[in-house]
């Protein structure tokens, strides 16, 4: 029933996409497309949510006679796909609502409207697919539609290059997944997921599959070192699409990883967890360090996606390590933390991209060095962005804290792991997680401070107006969700129980019945957290402080020039910029990670030349990994170019020698 509803939703989205191609130039199309996407998103969200909380134990399957004739298209709805459908359709609901307002300013709607519903349909289909062919086809469909959306503003500087790199990386990732499914299907070609589930691959084979899935899903999710396309492509798209790509599409990649590794690949080895943990820890720290160095607001947010994907993979790696040692409850805790962070990140990352889009719409500017003081002109957007910043910085009482807290609790269970590598690795990864959380707070003080606080750094903010009601509604729905998931996490953790039961055959104790809505992942004397109580306590303490002050303190208030130690300067250039804010952190971490070098030239007293400051930073991942590959590909392509101008004789002899060679190989083989 729910599966039929969801597939009909997808069909409606695809139909809307076709209609939008036909009528892209009419202004009513914008309203039509986003309204349909809004309603369909709501319907799919309701269907998937209802499935997850009521009948998640049983899976629904369906086979449609499309696709490969001997295979057909298999679809399946189970707890895991229902959870990710909730994430996808929550994102599509809010971004459609946001698009109703934001989409009106679109200069070329014909480049966005046909692809937007198609992109949503693609993501839904990936999660529903139940055979390798359908999965890969819809995965590629999702990649291509999002590529088209990245190309929407193709005339802007850098966007075409970003889209090109995205396309190359997406194709590379799909290739890796194709090979992974090929290995899973085996020589008999069992491409249906049910056949893969029942097969038992050998250890060597499953190691190869794991590596390929890490490349395929990891490149789409943005794991370091496969992240390079992400901070280029996500900001290039229109902001509601950026929100979808960063908040939701990366989660589809996480889904791909979870589906293959936890569901199809059979029982895990402990060292899988070690590999995934290492990649997750490196992604978390490098992602946030890259983000700190940015001054483009949307690119900063995109780098934070790399960080949060790292946090999610830390949880997944812990789950694999525990599961490999048959510690089921601990694995359930780690997986719950990862999946809860999947939900949380999709909520606050969408919210932050919406906020960045509102700023972009009001000022036409993404560069934080030219913004400032927007809290006075866009107060509601500022509140929403502040809530998102607090949530992503893992500060209570918002939701980001709860999932990171659960991850820490899982880390604290790991001394019981018997392997020495894990004993050393897990505390180091814990330190990396703590470091990334602390740096994220610094980064969002910078992002919010440079954009919304202080004084305007350029004239672009002069005419800024509060954004429209649709955008605000979309943002405040997400703010509310951040808060609810933060103060009532028990209900959300319980909703994840069917998923851990399905994948690990274990679950956390049910949380919602506990006294005072406290969450207790393991045992009460071990650890507990109560977001609601904490929220009430902070609110009461704040009220108490304010009451005492207003009862007994002087009410006199005077506005005057800033004090600034007696030397206030009227020029806004004297205030701290995003770059100067990050300077201490750059100096502590960046000299190593980015080879950051600062050169200051101070003219001697009496001379009139300006002082100069030069900063150089290198992206080592690009320099040492991608640049050599790019060089080799270029070299090979240059030399293969000569083949194009061969004579017909040379071509014929090439064909002949290849045939002989192949026949010889065959002869040796048998």
């Amino acid at each position, binding site marked *: 029933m729910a599966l039929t509803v969801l597939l009909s939703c997808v069909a409606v989205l695809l139909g809307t996409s076709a209609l939008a191609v036909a009528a892209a130039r009419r202004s009513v199309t914008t309203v039509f497309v986003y309204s349909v996407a809004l309603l369909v998103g709501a319907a799919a969200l309701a269907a998937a949510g209802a499935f997850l909380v009521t009948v998640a134990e049983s899976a629904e399957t369906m086979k449609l006679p499309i696709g490969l004739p001997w295979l057909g298209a298999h679809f399946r709805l189970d707890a895991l796909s229902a959870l990710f459908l909730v994430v996808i359709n929550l994102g599509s609901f809010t971004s459609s609502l946001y698009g109703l307002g934001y989409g009106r300013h679109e200069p070329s709607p014909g480049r966005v409207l046909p692809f937007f519903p198609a992109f949503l349909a693609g993501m839904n289909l990936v999660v529903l697919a139940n055979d390798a062919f359908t999965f890969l086809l819809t995965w590629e469909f999702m990649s291509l539609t999002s590529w088209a959306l990245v190309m929407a503003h193709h005339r802007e500087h850098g966007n075409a290059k970003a889209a090109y790199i995205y396309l190359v990386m997406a194709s590379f990732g799909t290739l890796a997944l194709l090979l992974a499914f090929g290995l899973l299907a085996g020589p008999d070609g069992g491409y249906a997921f049910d056949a893969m589930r029942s097969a038992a691959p050998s250890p060597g084979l499953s190691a190869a599959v794991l590596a390929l899935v890490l490349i395929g899903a990891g490149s789409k999710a943005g794991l370091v070192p496969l992240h390079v396309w992400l901070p280029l492509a996500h900001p290039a798209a229109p902001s509601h699409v950026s929100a979808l790509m960063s908040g939701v599409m990366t989660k589809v990649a996480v889904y791909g990883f979870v589906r293959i590794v936890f569901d199809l690949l059979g029982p895990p080895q402990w060292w899988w967890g070690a590999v995934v943990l290492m990649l997750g820890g490196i992604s978390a720290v490098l992602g946030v360090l890259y983000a700190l160095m940015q001054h483009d607001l949307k690119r900063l947010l995109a780098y934070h996606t790399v960080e949060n994907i790292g946090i999610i993979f830390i949880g997944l790696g812990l789950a694999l390590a525990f599961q490999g040692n048959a510690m089921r409850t601990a694995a359930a805790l780690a997986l719950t933390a990862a999946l809860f962070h999947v939900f949380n990140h999709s909520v606050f990352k969408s919210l932050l991209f919406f906020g960045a889009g509102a700023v972009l719409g009001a000022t036409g500017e993404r560069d934080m060095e030219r913004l400032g003081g927007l809290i006075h002109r866009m107060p509601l957007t500022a509140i929403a962005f502040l809530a998102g910043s607090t949530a992503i910085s893992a*500060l209570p009482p918002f939701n980001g804290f709860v999932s990171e807290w659960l991850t820490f609790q899982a880390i604290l269970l790991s001394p019981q792991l018997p392997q020495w590598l894990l004993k050393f690795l897990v505390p180091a990864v814990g330190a990396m997680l703590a470091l990334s959380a602390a740096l994220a707070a610094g980064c969002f003080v910078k992002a919010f401070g440079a954009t919304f606080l202080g004084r305007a750094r350029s004239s672009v903010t002069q005419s800024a107006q509060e954004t429209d009601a649709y955008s605000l509604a979309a943002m405040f729905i997400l703010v509310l969700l951040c808060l609810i998931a933060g103060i009532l996490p028990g209900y959300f953790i319980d909703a994840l129980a069917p998923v851990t039961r399905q994948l690990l055959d274990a679950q956390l104790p049910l949380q919602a019945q506990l006294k005072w809505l406290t969450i207790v992942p393991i045992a009460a004397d071990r650890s507990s957290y109560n977001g609601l109580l904490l929220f009430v306590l902070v609110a009461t303490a704040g009220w108490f402080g304010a009451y005492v002050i207003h009862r007994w303190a002087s009410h006199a208030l005077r506005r005057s020039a800033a004090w600034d130690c007696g030397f206030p300067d009227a020029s806004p250039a004297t205030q701290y910029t995003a770059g100067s804010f990050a300077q201490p952190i750059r100096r502590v971490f960046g000299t190593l990670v980015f080879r950051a070098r600062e050169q200051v030239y101070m003219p001697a007293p009496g001379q009139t030349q300006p002082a100069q400051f030069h900063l150089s930073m290198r992206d080592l991942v690009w320099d040492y990994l991608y640049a050599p590959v790019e060089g080799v590909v270029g070299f090979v392509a240059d030399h293969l170019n000569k083949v194009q101008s061969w004579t017909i004789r040379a071509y014929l002899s090439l064909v002949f020698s290849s045939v002989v060679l192949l026949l010889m190989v065959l002869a040796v083989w048998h």
Partner: protein
Amino acid sequence: MALIYDALVQSAQLALVLALAPLLTGYIRKIKAQLLRRRGPPLLQPYRDLLKLIRKEAVLAENASWIFRTAPYLIFATTLTAAALVPTFATGLVFSSAADLIAIVALLGTARFALALAGLDVGTSFGGIGASREMMIASLAEPAMLMIVFTLSLLAGSTQLSSVAAFVQGPEVGLRVSLAMALVALVIVAIAENARIPVDNPATHLELTMVHEAMILEYSGRHLAVIEAAASLKLLLYFSLIGCMFTPWGLATAGAGFVAYAIGAVSYVAKLAAGGFLLAVFETATAKMRVFRVSDFLGAALMLGLLGALLLFVSQSA
């Protein structure tokens, strides 16, 4: 009935930290002055300062937003909540299930986040310098703190403060290298978090190396009073934290009688006096560091914490 009794203990603790916090600040100032052979301000001076400040007119910069006006209350509220959750004279507080050690650290993170934003709000160079350096310090101090939490909770098998205190009081603790490392790391973190010498100087805002004082430079009147109260609460909180985790002797357990509570209170005050004296001596004996040396200082804390946790991970087997 038991609930009411527990609630009374909890409120007594709340009142105790609120009342004692400025006194502790005054006490440390007094000792520092005496060590320099000055007479120093009277012990009760911080209370007088607070009273004076709240009677004064508050001056706001022209472009200060609501963030600037609400941040003091938020900082005060989160710090007070955190201080109410750290056992001072008795464990087993009513609200102790609301937040474990990790959550208490994160609550202080919320306060710092608000303070850094307030520092950036007016758009002056000093506010920015303070906020930027504070976040740099925090980026090392917070992971170090979490590593300390890891060490203790691995030993005690719990991140709840009551359980940690009960474990350290118990017989099986012994002398452990990890605990010593965690203690040193925690002292370093506490010094950095409370803007004490050698990381920052609480007595002046005329140095270019200032951090905390630079962020609150624009505050005046009642807003400044609230921030000052929160700062002394935070100092008290770190003393309580060290006391509760490393010297939990005399700490009364939940539901103990009045005598146990009285013993707990007396030993708490004694711990504060000893700790404050040590801090004053340390501050007088050391010089302020250059700001970029702070990262080495805190890096040492982070490494100690990590090493302590690592030792436990390696020594505990299934």
